[in-house]
């Protein structure tokens, strides 16, 4: 089962998603968590996807939706240490050119300070 963890550090929301982010398991959890954060005004989001075992179009759709929404509210959604399957899906959809990814959580957090 997918696990979603949220930690707030200053104005940055740090979200950990792990396991299957798929229509049958975790994609709606991820979508709800991210939507909630954006509604609360926490729209600078670092999404750690290092432990994602599988992500399908539904999980990916949630990610893209929340990325768009965060940007619209003046924030951003940045990915930290994506697993190789996440890297592959970003590259297959060419979204790797649009959504920023960082090798580590720290780098992703620091990127918001710039």
């Amino acid at each position: 089962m997918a696990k979603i963890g949220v930690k707030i550090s200053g104005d940055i929301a740090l979200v950990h998603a792990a396991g299957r982010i798929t229509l049958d398991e975790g994609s709606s959890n991820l979508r709800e968590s991210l939507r909630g954060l954006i509604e609360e005004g926490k729209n600078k989001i670092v999404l750690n996807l290092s432990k994602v075992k599988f992500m399908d179009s539904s999980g990916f759709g949630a990610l893209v939706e929340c990325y768009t929404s965060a940007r619209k509210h003046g924030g951003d959604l940045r990915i930290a240490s994506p697993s190789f399957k996440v890297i592959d899906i970003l590259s297959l959809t060419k979204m790797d050119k649009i959504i920023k990814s960082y090798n580590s959580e720290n780098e992703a957090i620091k990127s918001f300070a710039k």
Partner: protein
Amino acid sequence: MSESINTAQGLKTQLKLARKKIRHLTSLLEATNTLSSTLDLNRLLELIMDFATKDLNAERSTLFLLDRKRNELWSRIAQDLEIREIRLPVGTGFAGWVAKTGSIINIKNAYEDPRFNREIDKKSGFRTQNVLCAPIWNSSKELIGVMQVLNKKHGSFTKEDEEFLIALSKQVSLSLQNAILHRDALEKKKMEEEIKLAKEIQASLLPQKVDLADNLEISTTCIPCEAVGGDSYDVIPIDRTHVGISIADVSGKGIPAALLMVNIQSAMRVIAPQHDSPSMAVESLNKSLCGNVPAGLFVTLLYCILDISKGYIYLCNAGHPPAIFVSHNGKARPLYRGGVILGVMGDAKYEHEKIPYKPGDTLVMFTDGIIEAMKKNGDAFGLERLTKVIEKTSSLCPDDMRQAILQEVSRFIGNKMSFQDSPPQDDLTLVILKYKNTASTDFAAEKLTIPSSIKEMRKVDLKTERFARKHGLNRLETHRLCLAVHEAVLNAIIHGNRGNPKCDVKIIFESHPASLRVSIKDHGEGFDAPSRRHPKRSPRTREWGLDLMKSSMDSVDLRKHHDGFEVILTKNIRRRSHGKNRR
């Protein structure tokens, strides 16, 4: 006193001139109205010349049109004589001189002028005295003709007559241009209609719907590059268990090639039923053609006889690109055996090849238009590329295979449209014959059937991963196959079966020598229009599915069946070292 007489005289002359001008103007107006009433060129020429003759009080007028290609003036009408065509080179005679220089001439005595061509008078028996001749220009200031008026009845042509002829030539110019364009358009239309008819006749000679034995499927197409072409195919029943199939290409295109092709097709229909050996039939055809093929044209042909009861193909190749035989295990082999092109050597000998024909086997015959289809940079599609496409699609039914091949060729040459909408550079002909597979499990195949519930997805993913690993896919390719199958199965559950758990989804995993194929079948009508069928569903949640399948697979084929919809995912097997296989 004498002054007033002078004034009276002057007024009289002026009045006379003014009246003449009014008459000319009225006449011009009348001419304009009448001329715009017809588009018939011959009638128009007659009308114009009538006007000129009458208004200038002359004996005869001729309107010459310029034939730019031959640099000649021609006229179809000489009044009072029968209708015939006169032609004279630009530069000779008065009209020729006007055409060359573009200036008007008014000659009082023709016989004293060195430009006069006495020959014309000699031929016609007419005696030319004085001549008024003016050029006709079109709107882009190009000369389109010359108007020539002969023999003023009283005296010679005046300055006013010159002005009138110039004015008339301006008036007739537009009407003439319209009539010329109209004539050209009519001629073109007539030609097009004739070609269209020829095309219909030719198409009707090709067998449209072919029914062979129950276990044989055939798919054919013949797309001419011009309205009529030099390619053809035919299916000729020989007896209860034998059928002849031919495909031929006449060198050259258009009507001459099409005529020869019709000749060959009829000859073959007579010859084929007399032979149970294709090489003998081809030898006989070759003999009958020699001496009848116009110089510079030749014919290539593939002829095969299918023994339906014993399961053999006998094939003879007369200088044609090879037929491609794909056995049920997906391996393709080109067939060349036969002899030289037809119609060149009357005593040429031919041989044929005997190939066992088993369920799942496919025979593809084509003309060079397929392999010689060219990109703008001159790269041809080629036999190798065609063979690959055939191998990749050999598990499809012949109609789908045909479509896939044409699509591939079209994509290769950079066509945005299908060949049906935009004609190819060369005639394209394709005949695909398939011995139907009684079961689709002839390959190394594994099956998984699940109820329509997304709770089954984990099972599907696990099964796909094991299948991919077992057949040697690396980590990245395994992920891509898993992703594509996952998306296809989700679509089948949600859109195809609409989540009805009583409807199942059948997944068949097949391993072929050069590819892995996964077929996902549901009971729906396809998911090509999800937005129409699921208007309330947010497109964001699903729109990546098909994209992901397409970008992660080598091919995604969508097939509609009477009882559902099938997606066939193909992943070519590449044996490369781990981690280096980014596409």
